[in-house]
Every structure is written in structure tokens, then in C-alpha cells.
């Protein structure tokens, strides 16, 4: 990336749990924001702009809930909404804002309040095309299951693979004190859970989760030399068309090759000077609410060839790759939809800064966070590093 380096100097996260009836949305946000400011060693007066991320309004049941809970009078404020990728869009915009010289420091905040929705799945049903799909209800789960069938047919994946990935994520979450109610699950337990839409089982699908996350993002000149900082080495984004039917077998790649994620990765890697991500990056926080999304992400992120997808997953499950995936537990363990992509960046940043606590991994010099929104449409890749570029 050209221009003055930009880094994350403060991180704040609330615990992630099903609902928070004792807190208003603003109080939930304040927990994360206060933590991030304290971590950054700055007050609100240092903040030049506040960017808020909230995805579908319908999940919280309050239109523009961000305006009452995130916006700060006297500061420029923008609200972002790219579904599950919202948090990453907030960060990408902060980079542009700071790079354009409009502020030295931006506060990036994402809030999920879906604990207020009694019928979250019904809300998710409204994301689909009302004209062509009015009488044919797709769901996020059936969308994932449809892809799974292609993975089974073309690459020979089995239920064991999905269960293995899920098991690893849930087990990692036990070391993340922010995932309330985290419980390790064996692959057998995952496989024994009820089927939702074949072959996706209940224990592969993420739970309803609320929470807030905040980052303090600054240009290098506004960060004290000795302050633990995660520098942004690269940021790429690419969005795709909606129709899954039109993405089945097009020239750019099949539906299961996650073409926009691949493109976002290429952009970010080029900026970061990465040519061999499997060797140059120690931690991947992949936004994957379902195991199969994670399995498709590996080749898209350049960790293996598409044709080698299944053998690579075998190696991942055997712990042979030398790469740490989702030390936080990832989106399968906790998925506060609006905040998930920001949390992946936050967790990757904490790994690089050595501040990930019980789930800190050793020797993390570079980490990658991905974001995913819509029907695997909005795709983002963020490369974070401990070295100032």
C-alpha cells in the first residue's frame, strides 16, 4: 500500500452471547468503544470520524439502530451495510478516509443486536430476490447446503470433513473467554446432531449471537513509536452478482471456487507483497459461518490448488499445515452478523500484537482476516502484520 502506513492501535470487544436484555444498544457499544479507546491510550477527542457497521436492520428490529448507539455528535459519521462483510467495509473505508487526509484516527464500530429478533431465520429469508424467488424460499442454510453437494460431487468431501472443521472451531472457542457458553465438540458429536438441510447439520450452523466490536485505526504519525500496533499490510474487496444459477459454471470459476474472495485475496496479497500465503502467514481468521465456506476459502486464499481442496482439508484436520485457523473459534462459534467481519480483523490484529490472551498463538508476524457477506458475494481480505511497512 502506498502512502503513510496505517495501523490498528486499539481493540475492544464485548462478550458474545445470545442476548443482552440488561443492556441497551448504546451501552453494549460503549463497552467495546471504551475498551478500544483505553487500549489505544486515547480519548474520544482524538477521534476524527466514527464509522458504524450494522447489517440488516431487521435483525435488531430497529431501523438505523446505529444512529442511536454508535454515532457521536460532533464527529463525521457514516453507516455501512454489506451484510456479513459490514465490519470489513468499515475498515476499508477508514483506510480511504485516513489516506485522503480527512482524519488522523477513525473509530470503527460494529454492532449486532439480533437477540431482539425472535424469528431471525424469517428475517434472513427477506434477503433473497422477491421477484424471481418470491414463492421459493431460500435460506442461508440451504444456500450453504447446495454448495456442499457440489463439493461432495466434485471433490469427494464427506460429512467427516465438515464435522472436523466445526469441531476444531468449537474447541478453539473454549480458549476465547469472549465466546460465552463455548463448548468443545468432537466430530462425532457434530455428526450426531440433527440434519438441517443435507448435508448441513445443526452443530455446523452458527448460533444467534449479539455483541459489539470497536477498533481505533490511525495513521502512523498519530501512533506513539512503542505502542503495540497491528499494521495493515493489504486490504482487498470484491463483490459478486447475486444469482447463484448464473455463477454455477462461468468462465471466471464455478460457484464453489469463491471467485470474489480469490480476487480480494490477490489484491491484498499484492499490496502486502505476499507470494506464498501458506508460508508467509501464521494465522487465518476466516469468516465462515458454515464449515463448507471454510473449506472453499482455502484454495481461494491461495493455500492450495482447487483440485487439491480435499487433500488440503485432510492436512488441516491432521494439523500438518503449520497454519493456525480461527484461533478465536471463528464465526461458527459466535456469529454476531453485523460485527463478524470486524471481529475477524480484531482477532487477527490481537494475534499480531500479542494480545490475544488465552488463545494467543506463538510467533505471529502476519495474520489474515476474511469477510463474507450476502450469498458469498461481498468478499474481503485484510492482511495484518507486526512490522511497520
Amino acid at each position, binding site marked *: 500500500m*502506498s*502512502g503513510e502506513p496505517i495501523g490498528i492501535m486499539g481493540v475492544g470487544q464485548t462478550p458474545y452471547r445470545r442476548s443482552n436484555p440488561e443492556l441497551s444498544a448504546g451501552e453494549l457499544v460503549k463497552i467495546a468503544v471504551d475498551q478500544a479507546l483505553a487500549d489505544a491510550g486515547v480519548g474520544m477527542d482524538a477521534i476524527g*470520524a*466514527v464509522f458504524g457497521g*450494522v447489517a*440488516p*436492520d*431487521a435483525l435488531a428490529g*430497529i*431501523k*438505523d439502530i446505529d*444512529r*442511536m448507539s454508535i*454515532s*457521536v*455528535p*460532533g*464527529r*463525521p*459519521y*457514516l*453507516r*455501512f*451495510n*454489506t*451484510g456479513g462483510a459490514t465490519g470489513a*467495509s468499515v475498515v*476499508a*473505508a477508514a*483506510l*480511504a*478516509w*485516513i*489516506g*485522503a*487526509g*480527512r482524519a488522523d484516527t477513525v473509530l470503527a464500530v460494529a454492532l449486532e443486536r439480533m437477540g431482539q429478533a425472535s424469528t431471525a431465520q424469517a*428475517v*434472513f429469508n*427477506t*434477503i*433473497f*430476490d*422477491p*421477484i424471481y424467488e418470491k414463492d421459493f424460499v431460500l435460506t442461508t442454510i440451504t444456500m450453504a447446503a447446495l454448495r456442499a453437494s457440489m463439493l461432495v460431487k466434485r471433490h469427494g468431501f464427506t460429512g467427516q470433513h465438515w464435522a472436523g472443521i466445526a469441531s476444531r472451531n468449537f474447541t478453539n472457542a473454549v480458549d476465547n473467554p469472549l465466546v460465552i457458553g463455548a463448548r468443545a465438540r468432537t466430530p462425532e458429536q457434530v455428526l450426531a446432531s440433527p440434519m438441517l438441510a443435507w448435508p448441513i447439520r445443526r452443530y455446523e450452523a452458527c448460533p444467534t449471537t449479539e455483541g459489539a466490536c470497536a477498533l481505533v485505526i490511525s495513521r502512523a504519525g498519530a501512533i506513539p513509536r512503542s505502542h503495540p500496533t497491528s499494521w495493515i499490510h493489504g486490504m*482487498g*474487496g*470484491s*463483490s*459478486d*452478482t*447475486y444469482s447463484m444459477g448464473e455463477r454455477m459454471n462461468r468462465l*471466471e470459476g464455478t460457484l464453489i471456487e469463491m*471467485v*470474489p474472495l480469490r*480476487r480480494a485475496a490477490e489484491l491484498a496479497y499484492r499490496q502486502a507483497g505476499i507470494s506464498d500465503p501458506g508460508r508467509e502467514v501464521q494465522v487465518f481468521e476466516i469468516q465462515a459461518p458454515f464449515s463448507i465456506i471454510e473449506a472453499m476459502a482455502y484454495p481461494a486464499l491461495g493455500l492450495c490448488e482447487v483440485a487439491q481442496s480435499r487433500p488440503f482439508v485432510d492436512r488441516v484436520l491432521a494439523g500438518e499445515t503449520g497454519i493456525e485457523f480461527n484461533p478465536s473459534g471463528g464465526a461458527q462459534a459466535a456469529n454476531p452478523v453485523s460485527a463478524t467481519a470486524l471481529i475477524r480483523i480484531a482477532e487477527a490484529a490481537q494475534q499480531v500484537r500479542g494480545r490475544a490472551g488465552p488463545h494467543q498463538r506463538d510467533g505471529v508476524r502476519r495474520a489474515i482476516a476474511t469477510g463474507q*457477506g*450476502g*450469498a458469498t*458475494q461481498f468478499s474481503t481480505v485484510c492482511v495484518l502484520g507486526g512490522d511497520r511497512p
Partner: protein
Amino acid sequence: MSREGAAAVAGVAVELTTADRTRSLPELIFSCVSAALADAGCVMADVEAVTCACEDLIDGRGLSNMITGPAAGAYLRDETRLSEDGLAALSLAAAQIESGTFDRVLVAAWGRAAEGDPDRISAQGYDPFTAQPLGLGDMAVSALRASAYLRRHGGPAARHRADRDRAVAARQERAKRNPRANRLPGRSPSVPYPLRPADLRVESDAVAAVVLRRAAGPGPAGLVRITGIGHATESFHLGDRLLSGLPSARAAARHALTQAGRGLGAVDVVEVSGRTVWDEAQMVESIGLASPGEGFAALATDARLNPSGGSAAGDCEPASGLVRFAEAALQLAGRAGGVQLAGMPRVALVVSGAALAGQTHTAVVAEHER
């Protein structure tokens, strides 16, 4: 911001219609964005990023830009979507260019009033405990502000009625001359006192698109550059801000003008958003283009102010601010047609408020190189 790094307008398009059954919402967007690309003399393949503004509840789609984003060109392309007024999206796109992230960005904003009920939808943004139970929505807030304005400037007396009537007539007359105005009447909602039907915007199916590009070095004659941008935010709580005018409009405009190095006296054309003529009058006063109490008179007699006819030519959130910007850009380029101001306008100021009756405002100064 250096002149070389600034963002410049390569093309604009506006479509204001009502309930055109031949086209779906994505098709309306495709049509307007295609027109903007044609205006810019480029194709979608030349665009690196799409930065758009739309609202899920207005579009009636739980995550609208899954389906509407690709209609604006988000096909294997960077996409940022704001749930904000369209002018805020333009501001962000300018930052994307100024920072060197992209060289060419397509900005789009839309709101199709005929598919839903924007006022009822707006009500969902207000505090569910203290405001929604009282039926508060954007229209009601316009009415409350209007009554506060009357109270401040002499009650429901006849004095202002004459000025208001002239302002309403002026808006309608300009809208008639505006080739881009919405020709079909929309819904006629019930109108809370002291508003009258003629005061309201013409509710429309609105789409606006602007192609922004990097303007490196001195440009060819006819280049419209963005030279100043301002943003300001007020408290969410209506009680804290209802009666104080529009301080965030004032602050945003001041910031944008300061950045552009211009005073109000240098501004040749102004486009401001406003759900009703009352809102436009208060906007004009807040910015300092009219003295307190003189907003209606200014709208009627100062030809610089909303030459497009403002929201009387057609409007729907969140496209409002981008529609206003497109009109201003056309004025600077001498291409506004029947509403073109004489005398080669050079500096434009655009100010627009976002959700919750303008809790935030964005202001943009654009200038024509001559």
C-alpha cells in the same frame, strides 16, 4: 487536498419516475447507471469500484444490495454500500480517489417510493420507547419543525404565508422547466398541520448515478472538481435538536467551504435537500444564505437556490443528496437545460441531510475549471 489528487466528475445521470411497471428496481438502477457511464464516455469495465447508498427497508429487501448492488455494477468489483444519504456515498467515493485507492468510482443511490411507504418506514428509525408510540416519522418531524419555525417567526400569521406561497410557486415553476423532473404525481399522503399538500416533495422513484475519477493535473475545460467536503452529526435524541435549526447542516457547509477556500458569496449555485419547502427554507437559513425568517423569501427570489426545483422535481431518500449533486454538477457544466442559470456558474454548494430528519448532514463544494 491537492488539486491533482482531487476527485472530478466524469458523468452524471438522474432518473425520477413513478411506478413504471415495465422496469423492476434493479432495472431502474441499471438504466440510470448505464446513462451515467455513457455520459462519462466509459464502460463498466473501466470502473474499479462501486460505492452506493440504499436502504433495506425502502427497497423492501432484507439485504438490498445483494440484488441491487450488481445492478449498479458490483460484479467482481469492489463494492461499498452505505445505508446513508447518497451525498455521503459521494463523499466516501471522493476519499477513495483522493487516497489513491481507486482511480474511477461509480457512485449510485436509489429509493423507489412506489414500492413501499417511505414515511411509515422512516418511523421505524425513531426511538421505540419514546417516539414511535406517538407516530413520529420524517413527515411528522417536518411538521413539528414547521410549527416551531412559525412560533419563532410570528405564529400562524399571514406574513409568512405570502412568502411561503411564492416559494412554493417558484419551486413548482422550476420543476416544470427541469427536463429531469418527475412528470407523474405520486402518492398524496395525509398531511399534518401546519404542512399543506403543495409544500411537500413530489414522492418519486429516484435513482442518481455519478462517475467520479481522479483529476490529475489541470484538466480540460469543463472539468468539475470536488474541492471541499464536510460532515457533521447531531444528537440522536430529537428533543435535543428539534428546535435548534439544522446545526449539522451549518457545520458541514462551513467545513466544506473552508476546505474549498471559498466564502458563501462566491457560491453561484446551491442545491439543498428538503422533504418540504419548510425544510428547504430552514436549510437555507441554517447555512447562512438567508437571515432567520427570510428563508421562504430567499427560495422565491434568489435564483441560485435550488434552481432544479428541489424536491418539487421529485425525491426519495436516500437518493436525495446525490440527485441534488447531479443537478448542481449539470449547472456547473452548463448542461442543466431548461433550468440552467445564466452567467456560467462556477462554484456549487450541495447540502443534504440523512436519516432521522437530518441527524447528520453532508456538504460538498464542487467547482468548474474555466
